[in-house]
């Protein structure tokens, strides 16, 4: 079956513009995570969705960042008024349950000029 799919794979945007990043998790996976990875470093937790529960937004760095998950499947991460420090690879992962191993997409590389 298909793995986690993220789009676009690369995004270049001008400072101040809004961007939307999309994640299609593995079918049947109830948990979905967004992480940010800067310059090949470790992963910074952003937000976590589990089933119909309220998302854990504790990792979002500012109110310019938001995410939603429609119908318990596809998720969109939105960054408003992008800044140069937002440049990074944004990784999405899904898992069968909240404590199952993660399956990652290949990420979206965001460059803010």
């Amino acid at each position, binding site marked *: 079956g298909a793995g986690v799919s993220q789009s676009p794979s690369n995004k270049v945007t001008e400072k101040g513009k809004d961007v939307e990043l999309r994640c299609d998790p593995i079918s049947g996976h109830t948990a979905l995570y967004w*992480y940010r990875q800067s310059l090949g470093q470790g992963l910074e937790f952003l937000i976590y969705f*589990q089933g119909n529960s309220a998302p854990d937004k504790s990792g979002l760095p500012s109110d310019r960042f938001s995410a939603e998950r429609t119908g318990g499947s596809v998720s969109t991460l939105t960054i408003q008024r992008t800044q140069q420090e937002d440049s990074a690879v944004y*990784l999405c992962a899904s898992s069968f349950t909240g*404590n199952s191993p*993660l399956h990652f997409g290949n*990420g979206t590389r965001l460059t803010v000029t």
Partner: protein
Amino acid sequence: TQLLEQSPQFLSIQEGENLTVYCNSSSVFSSLQWYRQEPGEGPVLLVTVVTGGEVKKLKRLTFQFGDARKDSSLHITAAQTGDTGLYLCADLTTSGTYKYIFGTGTRLKVLA
């Protein structure tokens, strides 16, 4: 807040050499995982360890979990160029909600 520190940060070795990388936690691990990430891809799970003192082997990779469950090591025997990548440890934290947090990573380059 739990912190996962990995060392070394960077490692460059010749093919055929052995190496060990480490992951240390500021608190007891709940469920330690090791991932490997290759350039342009997402991390891929290598192993999960949950019991203190546990040792797991995956071909040339040996994973060890400390008795106190606050540290872990990954040993690679006779490294190959295909082992090149970013090695990440992760823990499942249950502070509030289930949430995986990741270490700082060790970037390994194996030279032919």
